C-alpha cells in the first residue's frame, strides 16, 4: 500500500467515524427510550383527557338545555326564571372545557415541536452524507370496494352539504 493510499484510507476512516458519532449523537438527542416511556404515553393521555373533557362539557350543556326545554308550560314565571338562570350558569361553567382542552393541546403541541427539532437534527446529519434518503412510503392497498375513513376534514377539504345534496337530487 502506498503512502497516498494509506493517507486516503485514514482520512475516509476519520470521516466515517465522525459521521457515525454525529448520527449516534443525533439519535441520542431523540431520547427514544424516554420518548416511548414518557412523552408518547403522556401525549396519548392528554388527548384522551381532551376527549373526556369535551364530552363531559357537551353532556352538561345538553343536560341544561333538556331541563329548560322539558319544563311544563304551567310552571310559575319566577320558578322558570330561576331554573333558566341556574342552567345558564351551568352552561357557562361547562364552557371552561375550552380552556382546559386548550392547555392540554398546548402541552401535546410542545412535545411534538420538541420531537420535530430532534428529528430535524437527525435528518440534517443523514442528509449531509448525501447517501441516505427517506425510505419510500408504503401505501396500504385498499381491499376491493373498501373506502378509507379519514375522520373530519379540514376546512376547504372534502365536499360540503350543498355538493352532497346535488349528488342526491
Amino acid at each position, binding site marked *: 500500500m502506498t503512502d497516498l493510499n494509506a493517507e486516503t484510507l485514514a482520512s475516509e476512516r476519520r470521516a466515517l467515524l465522525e459521521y457515525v458519532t454525529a448520527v449516534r449523537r443525533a439519535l441520542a438527542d431523540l431520547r427514544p427510550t424516554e420518548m416511548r416511556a414518557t412523552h408518547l404515553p403522556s401525549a396519548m393521555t392528554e388527548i384522551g383527557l381532551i376527549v373526556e373533557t369535551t364530552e363531559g362539557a357537551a353532556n352538561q350543556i345538553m343536560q341544561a338545555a333538556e331541563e329548560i326545554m322539558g319544563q311544563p308550560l304551567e310552571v310559575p314565571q319566577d320558578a322558570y326564571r330561576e331554573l333558566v338562570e341556574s342552567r345558564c350558569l351551568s352552561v357557562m361553567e361547562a364552557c371552561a372545557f375550552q380552556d382546559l382542552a386548550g392547555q392540554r393541546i398546548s402541552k401535546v403541541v410542545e412535545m411534538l415541536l420538541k420531537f420535530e427539532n430532534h428529528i430535524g437534527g437527525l435528518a440534517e446529519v443523514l442528509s449531509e452524507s448525501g447517501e441516505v434518503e427517506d425510505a419510500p412510503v408504503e401505501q396500504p392497498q385498499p381491499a376491493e370496494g373498501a373506502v378509507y375513513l*379519514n375522520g*373530519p*376534514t379540514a376546512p376547504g377539504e*372534502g365536499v360540503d352539504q350543498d355538493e*352532497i345534496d346535488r*349528488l342526491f337530487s
Partner: protein
Amino acid sequence: MAISKDLPILIVDDYKTMLRIVRGLLQQLGFRNIEEATDGASALAMIKERPHSYGLIISDWNMQPVTGLDLLKQVRANAQTAELPFIMVTAEARTENVVAARQAGVNNYIIKPFTQAVLKQKISAVLGEF
C-alpha cells in the same frame, strides 16, 4: 302523505353524546319512537332480530368493527330490509366516501356538524314531508 311521528327510528353512533344530540333533535321534531345502538354490530343484531320494526335508520359511519357502511351493505343485502330508508350522518366528507355510500344504497348523507333544519330536510327528502 305526511309521515307519522310514531315512525320507529334506529339511531346508531358510537359517541353517546351524538346519540343524545340526534335523539334530542328528533324529539324536538316530534318523533316519539326512537331506539339507539352504540355500534354497528349491535345495530345489525337489532335489525336482524326485528327486521320489520324500523322505519328509518340514521347511522354514523366511523365505527369499529362494523362501520356504518358495513351496516348499510348488510341491511341492503337482506331481502327483508333491502328497502329500509338509511341516512348516513358522518364527519367523512370526502367525495369517495359519499360516492361509496351512494353506491351501497344510502338514501341520504348528512355531514357533521349539522343543524336540526338539515336533519328535517333529509328525513323529508327520504320519507316525505312531516
